[in-house]
């Protein structure tokens, strides 16, 4: 199995690792059983993701996709962040081995979960905006 240089770079030097103590939204997806958990923290100012941090338990691809996903949504309006697809994350990483594609799904879901939590905290029903987050098919 071969990882791209971009994946290795994001694994070796992950961007935006950590927690946001006073986060406006926190999302956690995945489970320990299948070996991947992603936790995403967002800070929202005027509908824009002003800060984002993550913590990930998982393989190299899981760490790299978390890192890349945070880079892609930082400074973006919520609506735009919601449009981020796992495909875009994979492309930005210059590809992933086929067995690792589920990790990129997890990154997309983690963002949606964090935004969903943000809306819930605002007293807004997230379902019509974010939709069902679903579960990783491989983990079921």
């Amino acid at each position, binding site marked *: 199995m071969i990882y791209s240089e971009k994946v290795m770079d994001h*694994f070796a030097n992950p961007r935006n690792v950590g927690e946001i103590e006073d986060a406006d939204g926190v999302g956690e997806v995945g489970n320990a059983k299948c*070996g991947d*958990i992603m936790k995403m923290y967002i800070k929202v100012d005027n509908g824009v993701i002003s800060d984002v941090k993550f913590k990930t*338990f998982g393989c*190299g691809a899981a*760490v790299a996709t978390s890192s890349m996903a945070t880079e892609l949504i930082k400074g973006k309006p919520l609506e735009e962040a919601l449009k981020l697809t796992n495909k875009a994350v994979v492309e930005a990483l210059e590809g992933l081995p086929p067995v690792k594609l589920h990790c990129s799904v997890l990154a997309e879901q983690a963002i949606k979960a964090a935004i969903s939590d943000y809306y819930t905290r605002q007293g807004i029903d997230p379902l019509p905006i974010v939709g069902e987050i679903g579960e990783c098919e491989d983990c079921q």
Partner: protein
Amino acid sequence: MEKRVVYADNSATTRVSKRALEAALPHFTEEYGNASSIYTLGMNAAKDVLAAREQVAAALGAKVSEIYFTAGGSESDNWAIRGIAEVMAKKGKKHIVTTVFEHHAVLHTCQYLEKYGFEVTYLPVDENGLITAAQVADAIRDDTALVTIMFANNEIGTIMPIAEIGAVCRERKVIFHTDAVQAVGNVDIDVKAMNIDLLSLSGHKIHAPKGVGALYVRSGINIPNLIYGGAQERNKRAGTENVPGIVGLGVAITDAVKDIEGKNKKVRAMRDRLIDGLLKIPQTRLNGDRERRLAGNVNISFRGIEGESLLLMLDMYGIMASSGSACTSGSLDPSHVLLSIGLPHETAHGSLRLSINDENTEEDVDYILEVVPIVAKKLRSMSPLWEKICRSEGIEDYTKD
């Protein structure tokens, strides 16, 4: 800290020894004859193949006529199991006894036979990764065709009571095969004294080149041909011999079985220092029996850490190791071996296998013991699972300093 390169994955493969390489090399360019040819160049090749066969036989306490060269351990396992199954099925015997934590070359072969009406008993192993001869005795039935049990486990290094199992099988008149890929050169083996009927071995695990192995088949055991064609390997496995590989295997196995205890003494001391040192890291456990394990095997689980990221980060420090079996990469499931000894999925995901040999040094051990705690702490500091474990079990999170 000065970066070192430490190869600690000798259960995956080994460096070809200088002696094996030197013996093999002329067979590529000078002594390149086909061992079936009648002129001198061919006859020389045939002589060298015979010499290698004698060397392999001597290493196992077998007769020359009982050694068949193959392309490696997986081929030997497949041939032994499918071959015996085919012969015994004709006698109405369609039951196989094995264990849950065999190498996939054995497990998947048994699963294949299940599709053709074979019944397979997968013996459970205990929490230390061991089975007993009594379990085997209890599992044998009137229609048992074959008992196939690994000599030593490739992931956790535990050593099975092969001589006792061999005695049980001989008494009950059941054919006994053992996958000894991880044991050859690490444990003294005598196929006669241990009542082993078939034994698989692989060259590249003992400093021979890749792509060569052997199957020992006790004389009197009928095994069908694996490959039809020429008369090589006593008609049973046709195809021009891999002369350089075979010659390399002969030299490598001779060296491998020389003074095993002397080599093990040194390796075991390093292994024990690694185990003791790594277990000082919080929330770790040793997988596999502490005593009845290969001299060079260390297998530790780190809670809250995923194995692949551990390996990738160790690689950045120059340390090459493995997490479970390398064969399981490409699958999302944690190692079947670690699950078989009762580890929960999340702990099985976070295992590290270091397999050292007498080429490793005390400096390698020092370096590993310096690096692994740093890497473990870093990965835990970014692991939501570690955070959860600390919170739910009231463990102080040492990564927060």
